[in-house]
C-alpha cells in the first residue's frame, strides 16, 4: 500500500454548541484523487481546515505526513474558494503566485529560484500569458488556475481544493479536471464540493460528508450513505459503467 499522506482518527469539531464534524476518520494515500461531497454547511471546509491545522479538533488526532499538521502543512498546497477573494486587490497574477514562495527566508526578496518555480507553476496551469494581469480581471476559471499555481509554487506533496468548480461553466470545468488529472501523477489531491455529478466522473475515490464522513476507501458510494449524508433520498443518474458512482441496486 502507498504511503499515507494524511490521516484523521476519530476527529470531532464543535463551534460553540454546534457539532460540525463528528468522529471523522480518513486516510489519504499518495496519488489518491479523493472527492468529498456533501451539502452546504456539512463541514467540508472545516475538514480541510482541520487538515491544515487552522482549526484544532476538540477530539481525535490529525497526522500530516506522519506528524503534526502545524509542522508539516507546508507540504500541503491549499486552494481556497476563489470567490471569497477581494477581486479589486492591487496584485498581479505573477505576484499572487509568488506569494506561494513567500515563506522562504523572512526579510529577503524573492530569489531567481522562487521566480523560476512561480513561472513554471503558471506554465503548468496554462496562465503564463496572463502574468502581468491584475487578478480581478480574469474569469472565474482563470482565477482558479492562478490559485492552483500559487499552491504549486510552494512545491506541495498534496493538494487540497475547496469547491474549485463553483461558478465555472461546464466546458472550462472539463479542462480544469483534466489539469487535476495531470497533477495527480505527482501528488495526492483532495477536493471538496457540493456538486455530486461534477466530482464523481473525475476522482479515484469518493467520500460523503455531512458532519459524519461516509467513506469506504473506494470510488463507490452506497445509496444509504448518500441518503444519510444528505438526509433525504438522493436520486443519482448512473452515467454508465465508467462513471458509476453507485453500486447496482
Amino acid at each position: 500500500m502507498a504511503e499515507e499522506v494524511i490521516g484523521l482518527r476519530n476527529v470531532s469539531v464543535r463551534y460553540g454548541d454546534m457539532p460540525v464534524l463528528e468522529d471523522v476518520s480518513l486516510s489519504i494515500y499518495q496519488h489518491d484523487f479523493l472527492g468529498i461531497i456533501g451539502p452546504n454547511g456539512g463541514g467540508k471546509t472545516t475538514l480541510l481546515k482541520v487538515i491544515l491545522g487552522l482549526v484544532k479538533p476538540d477530539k481525535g488526532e490529525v497526522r500530516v505526513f506522519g506528524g503534526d499538521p502545524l509542522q508539516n502543512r507546508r507540504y500541503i498546497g491549499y486552494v481556497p474558494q476563489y470567490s471569497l477573494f477581494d477581486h479589486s486587490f492591487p496584485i498581479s497574477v505573477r505576484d499572487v503566485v509568488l506569494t506561494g514562495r513567500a515563506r522562504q527566508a523572512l526579510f529577503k526578496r524573492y530569489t531567481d529560484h522562487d521566480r523560476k518555480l512561480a513561472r513554471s507553476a503558471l506554465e503548468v496551469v496554462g496562465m503564463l500569458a496572463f502574468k502581468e494581469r491584475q487578478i480581478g480581471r480574469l474569469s472565474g476559471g482563470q482565477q482558479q488556475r492562478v490559485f492552483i499555481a500559487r499552491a504549486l509554487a510552494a512545491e506541495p506533496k498534496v493538494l487540497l481544493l475547496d469547491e474549485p468548480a463553483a461558478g465555472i461553466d461546464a466546458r472550462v470545468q472539463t479542462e480544469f479536471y483534466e489539469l487535476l488529472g495531470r497533477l495527480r501523477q505527482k501528488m495526492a489531491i483532495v477536493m471538496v464540493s457540493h456538486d455530486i455529478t461534477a466530482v464523481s466522473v473525475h476522482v479515484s475515490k469518493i467520500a460523503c460528508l455531512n458532519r459524519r464522513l461516509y467513506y469506504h476507501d473506494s470510488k463507490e458510494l452506497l445509496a444509504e450513505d448518500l441518503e444519510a449524508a444528505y438526509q433525504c433520498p438522493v436520486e443519482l443518474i448512473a452515467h454508465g459503467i465508467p462513471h458509476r458512482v453507485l453500486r447496482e441496486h
Partner: protein
Amino acid sequence: MITALEYGFMVNALAASLLAAIACGIVGVYVVVKRIVFISGGISHASFGGIGLGYFLGIEPVLCVIPFGIASALAIGEVSRRTRLSEDSAIGILWAMGMALGIMLIALTPGYAPDLLSYLFGNILMVSRSTLWVMLALDVIIVTVVCLLYKEFLAITFDEEFATVIGIPAHKLYLVLLCLIALTVVMLIRVVGVILVIALLTIPASVSRRFTNDMRKMMGISIIFAALFAITGLYLSYLFDLPSGSTIVLVSGVVFLLTSLIPSGHNFKY
C-alpha cells in the same frame, strides 16, 4: 506661499506635512487594501488616552502617544482573537475607552489644558523642531520595516490564511502592521488630529488606487497625493485663516470626489 514661508512655524508645518505624507502614503495603502479602516480608527481614537496620560504625568504628549498607541494596536489585534467577542465590537470598545480615559486624565490634571483641541482636530502650525525629529525617526522606522517585510505584508494582506498555511507568521506580522498604523497615527495627530486621522489614512490611498494596479506604485502615488493635500490645505488655511486640520481633510475629500467622477481603467470600488 513664499511670504508664508518667512514664518518659522510655516516652514515647520510644511516639513511636518511632507514627513507625515510619507508615512500615511505607505501605511494608508495597507489600511485600504486590507480593509482595516475601522481598526485604524480604533487605534487613532484609543491613542487619545496617551495624550491624556502625557498631560497627567507632565510628559510631552506625543512621546506618550507612541507606547500608548502601540499598546492599543496590540490590544485590538489580540482581543478579538482571544475572546469570543467579535472584532468590530472589540474595536468599538477600545475606541471609546481610550477617548474616555484621555478626557478623564486631562480633567484630573490640575490647571487648564490649552491645546486639547489641537490634539483632537490637529494644529500643524504648532509643530516644534523636536517633534519634526521624532516624525523623521518614525518615517525611517516605517519605511525600513515595509522594505524588509514587503513580500510578507503582501502575502498576509492578500490572503492571511494561505500565508499562515505556507509558514509565514501571519498573525505576528499583522500585529507589526497594526503597530505601523499606530506610529503613523502619532505623526498624523499633529497634522489633522485624532478624529480626522482616518481621512489621511484612507483618502490618498483610495485616490492612488484609481491610477495603478501595483501596490508599490500605489504607495508612491499615495505619498504624492498626501503631500499635495497637506500643502494645499495648509496654504488655504493660511490664506483664509481657517483651521488647518479640517482644511486639509476637506481638500482631500474634494479631490477624492473629483477623481471618483473621472472614468478610470481600474474600475474598482473603495
